[in-house]
C-alpha cells in the first residue's frame, strides 16, 4: 500500500479525486481516504500532527513494514516560482536542529531542494530553503516503519518572496496540485516500485504455508524451515518440494531433516 500524508483537506481533495480514493468511514481522529493500492491521511497542520497521523496510518493499513510513504504539501520559498514542485534531499527541524537525508534512490521528476520545518508560518524566507510545517514530523515517524529509500517528501511552492504566505482558496490549491500531478505520479510510482522489490524479497517462501498447516514446528524450527525453503527456491526455482515422501513424515523434525537432505543434494547453478 502506498501511503500519502497531507496536512489540509484542501490538499487532500484533488489527490483523492486524482487517485480515485474513497473515504474510510471507520477512521477515528483523522480523515483517511483509500483504495486497494493507496491510503491518504489528512494530518492537520504541524509536525506533531504529521507524526501522529503517520503512525495512525501505519496501524490503519495493517502495520506491514516497508510500504512507500510520501508527504505531499504546500510550502514557501524565497525565489522559486509559485507552483514549482521540489523533492526534499534534506529535511531539517528548525526548532531542534535535527536533520534527515532521504536517500536519492529514485530519479526525481522535479528539482531537489532542502526543506526546513518551522513551527509557525514563515514570513521571512531568509535562507535558500523550502519552508513548510510537517516534514520533520512525518519523516522520522515514517522511518520507524519503512527503510529510508521508500520515504519521500514532495512540496509545491505556494508562496515566495513576492507573494507572501496566505490562506489559499480551495480552487488555487486544486490548480497548484493539478499542475503537478505528473510529478506526484512519478514520485508515487517510482517509490512504489522500490517498495514492491522489497515486498517480493520479504514474501514467504512458496510452500511455507502448506508445511506450517500440516506439521507442528517450534519457533526455532520455523525459522530453519523458512530458510531451508528459501534455499530450495533459490536453487530449484522450478521444482515443488511437497510430495508423497514428505507427506509421510510424522513430525516437523523429520520434515526438516528430509528438506535439508534434498536442499543439499541440489547442484549449485549460479545463473
Amino acid at each position, binding site marked *: 500500500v502506498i501511503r500519502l500524508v497531507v496536512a489540509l483537506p484542501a490538499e487532500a481533495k484533488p489527490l483523492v479525486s486524482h487517485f480515485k480514493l474513497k473515504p474510510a468511514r471507520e477512521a477515528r481522529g483523522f480523515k483517511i481516504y483509500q483504495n486497494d493500492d493507496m491510503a491518504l491521511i489528512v494530518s492537520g497542520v504541524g509536525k506533531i500532527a504529521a507524526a501522529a497521523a503517520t503512525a495512525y496510518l501505519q496501524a490503519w493499513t495493517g502495520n506491514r513494514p516497508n510500504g512507500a510513504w510520501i508527504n505531499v504539501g504546500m510550502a514557501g520559498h524565497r525565489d522559486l516560482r509559485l507552483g514549482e514542485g521540489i523533492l526534499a534531499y534534506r529535511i531539517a527541524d528548525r526548532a531542534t536542529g535535527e536533520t534527515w537525508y532521504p536517500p536519492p534512490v529514485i530519479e526525481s521528476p522535479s528539482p531537489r531542494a532542502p526543506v526546513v520545518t518551522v513551527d509557525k508560518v514563515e514570513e521571512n524566507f531568509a535562507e535558500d530553503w523550502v519552508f513548510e510545517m510537517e516534514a520533520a514530523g512525518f519523516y522520522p515517524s515514517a522511518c520507524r516503519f519503512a527503510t529510508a529509500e521508500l520515504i519521500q517528501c514532495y512540496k509545491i511552492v505556494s508562496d515566495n518572496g513576492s507573494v507572501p504566505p496566505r490562506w489559499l482558496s480551495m480552487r488555487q490549491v486544486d490548480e497548484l496540485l493539478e499542475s503537478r500531478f505528473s510529478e506526484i505520479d512519478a514520485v508515487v510510482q517510482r517509490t512504489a516500485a522500490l517498495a514492491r522489490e522489497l515486498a517480493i524479497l520479504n514474501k514467504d517462501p512458496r510452500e511455507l504455508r502448506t508445511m506450517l498447516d500440516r506439521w507442528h514446528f517450534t519457533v526455532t524450527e520455523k525459522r530453519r524451515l523458512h530458510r531451508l525453503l528459501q534455499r530450495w527456491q533459490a536453487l530449484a526455482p522450478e521444482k515443488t518440494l511437497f510430495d508423497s515422501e514428505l507427506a509421510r513424515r510424522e513430525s516437523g523434525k523429520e520434515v526438516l531433516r528430509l528438506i535439508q537432505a534434498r536442499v543439499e543434494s541440489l547442484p549449485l*547453478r549460479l545463473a
Partner: protein
Amino acid sequence: VIHTIYIEEDVAEHPRAEQICSRFPNADRVFIRRYGEIFNRNGQSFRLQKKRPALILARKFGRLVLPAPRGYGIGGQRNFYFSHMLNCVYDCRYCFLQGMYRSAHYVVFVNYEDFEKAIEAKLEESPGKEAYFFSGYDCDSLAWEPVTHFVKSIYPFFARHPEAWLELRTKSTQVKSLLEATPLANCIVAFSLTPEPVSKALEHKVPPLQQRLAAMEALQERGWRLGLRFDPMILTEDFHRHYRRLFAEVFERLRADRLHSVSVGPFRLPGTYFDAMTRLYPEEPLFAGPVEARGRVVSYKKRLEEEMMSFCVRELLPYVSEEIFFPAEIDGRA
C-alpha cells in the same frame, strides 16, 4: 553517473573535492557535517541504494592505516591495509561490503596526504624493514581512478619508499594511468579472478574476463608486477572444468615467470555479514549453497572446501613456482 554528492563542509574547498565534483557538473551538491550522518544511519537498504548510489566526499580521521587481517599477506611479515574509498562501483554478490555497511553510497576520503603520513609512520616504527600496504580492501583500487586519481597521487610516495610495498587490488581495466607511468618495483597490481561463468553470474558491472586479461597483459608488457588472486574461489556446477579453463586462459596470456605472486582462497565471510547478505538477497543461489559456520566464519563445508582448495593448488602448481604461491590456510581465519 553520480546524481547526488554529499560534501563534508570541512573538505568543501579541498582541491581534490573540487576536482571530483567537477566530474559530475549536474549532480546535486548537499553539504553535510560528517559522512556518518548519511552513511551510518539505521534503516537504510544497501540493496536499494546500490541501484543509484550517491557519492560522499569526506575527510578520514584517526586510524587511516590498519593491520591487515590474518591470512591476507603475500609473504611479508608486516601487513597493513588502508582505504581511500568505502564501497565499490562493482556489485559482486559475494562481496563482504554488502554485509558490513548499511549504505551503498561511495565514500571517498579526499585527504590522501594524511594516508601518506600514516603509511610513513608505520614505516618509521621499523626503519628500513619491508612492509606491505594493501589498498582495495573496502573498494576496488583502480575502478574509479579516472575520478579519484588516487594511484596517481600516491605514486611519488611509493617511488620514494622502496621498502614500502603497495598492493592495488582490482577487477578493473582502468590501467591507463599505470601504463603512462614508469613501473614501480614495489607495487603489485593484483587482479581478483573467477571463471567467466561465475563472473557473469555474480560480479555485476565487472568488465568481461577477456578485457581484464588484455589489461593485465598490457601492464605486464609495460613492466608492472602483477598478482593473481583466485580469491574468493566460488563453487559452481562444473567447478573443476571452469577453474581449469580459467587457469589455462590466464597463463596462456600472462608470463608466469614475471608474476609477483599468486594466491588462492575460498569464499568465506564473518557469520554476521553472511546473515545480513542473505537477508538482502534471499533468492541468491550463492547463499543457498553448501556452507557452514565454523567459529565466527561462514564458508563452504570443510571437506568440500579442502577438496576445492587442493584441486586449485594442484592445477596451479604446474604454472606457478612455490616461492610466489600463497594458498590460504583453511583454518587461518579471523
